């Protein structure tokens, strides 16, 4: 039964996880890319060992993103954006190591819960997932978008920034592979050559968070960085298990949301952590502490994005449909070995099925072990003098942008455009967090909104489609009400102070 567990198998999972973490930790490199570059190796490795390597890369790649998100405020991958909101403030006040530990534990919890969901309920979950038509998917995206309001400093500016993000994400072709009609729109005349495909997410992301941060530091004349001493000062707020007290609900909910977003094909991996962050903030008793270094924010974000790993495997293995961009590549690995994935996969290939589940289990443990022991060294990144660290980050951003779509120079220019834009945004009050969330979710919002109307021909469908739609409206209303109350409380506090 378990004859596939050989030293080679375990070794491949560990090395895959390690390489994945490195990819995830470099701004601009993603889990998808890690899997893509190693895919050709799997042919000679055979199915079980090949999958062991790829699943290690997947789990590692999704997890590694938290390192730069927390230490540098640059999300290593799109799914760790929400980790920066609370992780970076913690690192800035010298709690980087603690924040890393919280993130890693949350990642492990997310990974294990979603793996359990995959193992016990895969076919049933897939059955449930196909109840989500365009309408329900649009409402899920809408719910995720409500976090724009919750994240903004100034409500009006924040919402404006979010819609600006959506608007800019629509530039270029209305993509046929998502169901669009292939027509161009919003492209300034004369720029069709570059802009027909629009701006890619990854260069926009590392431009706004990476290059813009460097530009701000340059504007301020490169203030001296934290010294090693500062990090040791952080020792006074040592990590202890008590941080997780009262957070079990948060962890379970966020892992569940992450898993579920993974199960829904097309909603997109980065939505997982955004949704669990939104939900946690909405449910919290002190929502105003989010975005200022609340550990609960890191837990929500990291357990959400690692919850994705098990979730995205559900539709892959029980419908033959990938749940996110990385699992789409796994289909390639299966076909290279002559194995079909589809609704009968689990029943027809019990051996491969258990090999996948065990590989993911080991990968999660490996991820935890590797990162937990590497933390001390990782945390020292902030002690590297900025005049050495920043040029190297710049160079890595360039590589990430250039390789994300396999060699397109315009993606590198996108990095610069959005680096400068990010710097301008902070000057004129446009808020980066809602902007990037709008940019990420914009294309999905469009396709599901337009397709819902195209298929059903009435706006009322958003309310009458199913009980799921009604439930989603309740969640959306809750999130909006929460943000409004939060804004009122903020205003009242300001008045009291002033």
């Amino acid at each position, binding site marked *: 039964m378990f004859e596939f567990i050989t030293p080679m198998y375990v070794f491949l999972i560990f090395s895959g996880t390690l390489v994945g973490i490195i990819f995830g930790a470099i701004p601009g490199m993603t889990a998808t890319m890690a899997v893509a570059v190693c895919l050709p190796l799997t042919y000679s490795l055979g199915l079980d060992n090949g999958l062991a390597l790829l699943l290690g890369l997947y789990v590692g790649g999704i997890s590694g993103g938290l390192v730069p998100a927390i230490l540098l405020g640059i999300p290593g991958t799109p799914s760790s954006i929400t980790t920066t909101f609370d992780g970076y403030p913690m690192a800035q006040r010298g709690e980087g190591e603690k924040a890393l530990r919280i993130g890693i534990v949350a990642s492990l919890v997310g990974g294990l819960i979603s793996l359990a969901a995959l193992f016990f309920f895969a076919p049933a979950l897939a059955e449930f997932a196909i109840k989500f038509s365009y309408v329900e998917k649009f409402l899920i995206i809408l719910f995720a978008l409500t976090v724009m309001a919750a994240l903004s400093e100034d409500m009006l500016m924040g919402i404006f920034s979010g819609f600006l993000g959506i*608007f800019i994400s629509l530039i270029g072709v209305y993509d046929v592979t998502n169901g669009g009609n292939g027509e161009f729109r*919003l492209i300034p005349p004369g720029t069709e050559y570059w802009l027909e495909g629009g701006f890619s997410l990854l260069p926009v992301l590392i431009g706004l968070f990476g290059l813009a941060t460097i530009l701000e530091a340059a504007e301020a004349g490169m203030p001296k960085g934290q010294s090693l001493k500062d990090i040791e000062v952080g020792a006074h707020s040592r990590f202890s298990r008590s941080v997780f007290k009262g957070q079990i609900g948060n962890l379970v909910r966020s892992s569940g949301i992450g898993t579920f977003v993974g199960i829904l094909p097309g909603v997109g991996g980065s939505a997982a952590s955004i949704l669990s962050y939104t939900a946690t903030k909405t449910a919290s008793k002190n929502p105003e502490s989010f975005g200022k270094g609340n550990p609960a924010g890191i837990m929500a974000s990291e357990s959400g994005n690692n919850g994705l790993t098990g979730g995205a495997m559900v539709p892959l293995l029980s419908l033959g449909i990938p749940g996110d961009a990385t699992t789409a590549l796994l289909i390639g690995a299966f076909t290279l070995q002559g194995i079909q994935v589809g609704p009968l996969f689990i029943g027809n290939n019990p051996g491969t099925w258990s090999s996948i589940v065990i590989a993911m289990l080991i990968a999660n443990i490996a991820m935890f072990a590797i990162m937990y022991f590497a933390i001390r060294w990782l945390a020292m990144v902030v002690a590297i003098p900025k*005049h050495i660290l920043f040029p190297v980050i710049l160079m890595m951003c360039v590589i990430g942008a250039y390789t994300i779509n396999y060699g397109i120079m315009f993606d590198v220019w996108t990095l610069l455009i959005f680096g400068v834009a990010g710097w301008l945004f902070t000057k004129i009050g446009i808020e980066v967090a809602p902007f990037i969330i709008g940019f990420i979710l914009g294309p999905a919002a469009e396709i599901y909104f337009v397709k819902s109307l195209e298929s059903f021909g009435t706006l009322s469908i958003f309310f009458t489609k199913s009980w799921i739609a009604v439930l989603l409206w309740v969640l959306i209303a809750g999130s909006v009400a929460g943000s409004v109350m939060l804004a009122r409380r903020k205003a009242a506090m300001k008045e009291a102070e002033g």
Partner: protein
Amino acid sequence: MADLLAVSIDFETSHLLFPKLIGSILALLGLAILITHRRAIAHSGAMWAQTFAGMDKLRFFGTLILTVIYFLLMVPVGDRWPNTGLGFLICSIPFVAAISILYMHERDARSLVPVLIVAVAAPTLVWWLFTYVFALTLP
């Protein structure tokens, strides 16, 4: 009621529906901002003047100019040795070195040594890794 909510979408022009919707919302929000934040907007001239006055112009514009030169050179240089990633390597070493020196506060020989080592080693390592180990295309 049902009639009021009915919409019919023409697939041929459906690419414009959502941009128009979002554009309109954006315009409304923009208008609201103009009204509520008019004082801040009126003072934006002063804000910019202050920003430029307080700015480390050498480091800020130096970063921008060096980055633009770096991006502009990468492709033509790489084109001399197609598909080897050498354009990236050859341009990255002086770029990393120049930005490092630009950002340094004390530019003495002792602190220049590690900077130059990193400027040579980091791009070389990355180039080797991406070109040979991961087989990805660099400029």
